[in-house]
């Protein structure tokens, strides 16, 4: 029910476009093998729904245990194992990375509150956010399945593909930045840092020459973001929300870059 109402919200238009762009870009999981199920989401929706219900129950049981037995009687590491165990994990990771990051953020929100011995009300608050992220993710996967069924989404790649144009490259960079947030939310700052470096060297560096002709200040801003602001934000001390803010600001600049490049491309003379 929640998932259905989520799909109807107007803000989902952006997400729909994001889904198309992200899946079109092709991707590989950093968490191991992606099953073939991600290329047949519709047939697996029932399974994903069951898994989300199972996760909500399991995470709820951890919080209940904490309420009953306190911190020492609660194994919060089990939450990570539950999440890693389900196929829904790779379904959302390959469908909509921003929500994937929210789930990790939610899991660690509950885990850290318990590990810190926070009052149960605070833990329930974190649990509520986690549950919302899970339902939101299920909605995203359902939406992706509809697009996949209509043939509007490219097959999820198991090997990396190269973007060939500047706009494609800029989209790919945005997607990789989403993964930075996801890895950071997953408490893997080194993995997040290596995505940033790799994205700069193998993606942004290839398009910034074209972009600098259009707006030198914008490139200067993004250079600083890639080399200073974002690496500092993912040094392990910032909150996931703070890292997300940096990434969202960079993504807005990349959107502006895309518009500039598209306008310049229209003016470009033909080869022959």
């Amino acid at each position, binding site marked *: 029910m929640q998932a259905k109402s989520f799909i109807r919200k107007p803000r989902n238009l952006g997400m729909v476009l994001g889904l198309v762009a992200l899946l079109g870009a092709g991707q590989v999981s950093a968490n191991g093998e992606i099953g073939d199920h991600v290329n047949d989401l519709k047939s697996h929706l029932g399974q994903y729904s069951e898994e989300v219900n199972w996760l909500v129950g399991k995470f709820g049981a951890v919080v209940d245990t904490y309420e009953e037995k306190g911190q020492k009687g609660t194994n919060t590491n089990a939450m990570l194992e539950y999440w890693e165990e389900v196929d829904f994990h790779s379904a959302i990771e390959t469908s909509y990375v921003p929500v994937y990051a929210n789930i990790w953020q939610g899991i660690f929100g509950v885990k850290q509150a318990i590990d810190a011995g926070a009052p149960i009300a605070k833990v329930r608050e974190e649990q509520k956010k986690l549950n919302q992220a899970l339902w939101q993710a299920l909605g995203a996967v359902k939406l992706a399945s509809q697009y996949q069924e209509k043939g509007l989404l490219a097959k999820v790649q198991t090997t990396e593909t*190269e973007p*060939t*144009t*500047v706009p494609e*490259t800029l989209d790919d960079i945005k997607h990789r930045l989403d993964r930075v947030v996801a890895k950071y939310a997953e408490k893997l700052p080194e993995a997040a840092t290596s995505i940033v470096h790799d994205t*700069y*060297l*193998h993606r942004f*560096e*290839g*398009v*910034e*020459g*074209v*972009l*600098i*002709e*259009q*707006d*030198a*200040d914008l*490139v*200067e801003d993004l*250079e600083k973001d*890639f*080399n200073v602001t974002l690496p500092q934000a993912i040094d392990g001390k910032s909150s996931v929300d703070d890292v997300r803010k940096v990434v969202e600001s960079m993504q807005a600049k990349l959107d502006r870059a895309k518009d500039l490049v598209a306008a310049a491309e229209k003016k*470009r*003379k*033909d*080869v*022959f």
Partner: protein
Amino acid sequence: MQRRAFLRSACLNSFAAAGALGALPFPVFASDVAGVRPDAVSVDQLPPLEGDLTLYLGRGEGGLYENVLDAIRKRNPKLNLQVRRGVTAALANTIVAESKAGVRRADVFWAVDSGAIGLVADAGLARPLPADVTEALRPGFQYPQWAPVTGRIRTIPYNTERVARAQIPDSVMALADSDFAIGWAPAYASFQSFVTAMRLLEGEKATADWLRGVNQRAKSYAGELGVVMGVERGEVDIGFANHYYTLRLKAGKPDANVDLAFTKNDAGCLVNASGILALSEGDLPINFIRYLLTREVQSYLAREAYEIPLVNGVQPPQGLPPLSEISPPKLDLTKLADLRPTLNLMRRTGVL
């Protein structure tokens, strides 16, 4: 018929050019001897491309190579062009590995740097090019088994508020003993090719001394556009970078505090090139190469990507000094493939 006339004319001109160039220093740029060599042909003089062709394409500048490929496809509807893209060095290794396995998937290899071309050519996989193709290229850029497509010059971008051009020495080696604050990008492939050229031209010891000397006052950047931007902001006085970063920055910011200086006859003004070679026999790969050397494609890459045309009769990008004023060193560009000793040297001197 048109094609035969073109070949005959190119052949006659090439004999004249060979005679005229015999006494000239190597390499020779420019218009200094123009008129005795054939100008670049127009695409209208080439035969249509028909059939299946697989191109391995090293990552190019901002998608502009893709525009060239799209234009070739559009002009040749009977050409079935398949493209595999990737990092240039990785594609070169793939071609060699495929050959060892008895497989040949690529018909043509277009690489962004000549080192990768050298790797494939040294493995004996490149087909010889017809004389009219090599002779259409500028002297110093004529190779029997591959064709340089466009060039890029190593430059010294300098901050015009902090440094006068006359203060910059003509010798890149002298910069190690200067007081300039220097920006460089040691992890960057073009920089490593430049150090390789220095190692080949000046020797290991001189290069090691140079690296140590510059390293004392150098600020490192991730890429060479970053170097040029650092120079422009005044973080450093001068830097080492390919020419087009400065031209592009000035296109987007005409009042930028940066200009270009060139050293003379050393690695500091090396002209490196993207290149193409044919891996399979037949007319189609060779004629595809001819398309890249046409006046139209060369002009497009000069105008849009700020790359230096290497065929005769095509203007260099705006903002570069006349090419006749630049004196790059004599060096077989394919030797730049020998990167391992360079990386070892850079590690040994603490630069990497």
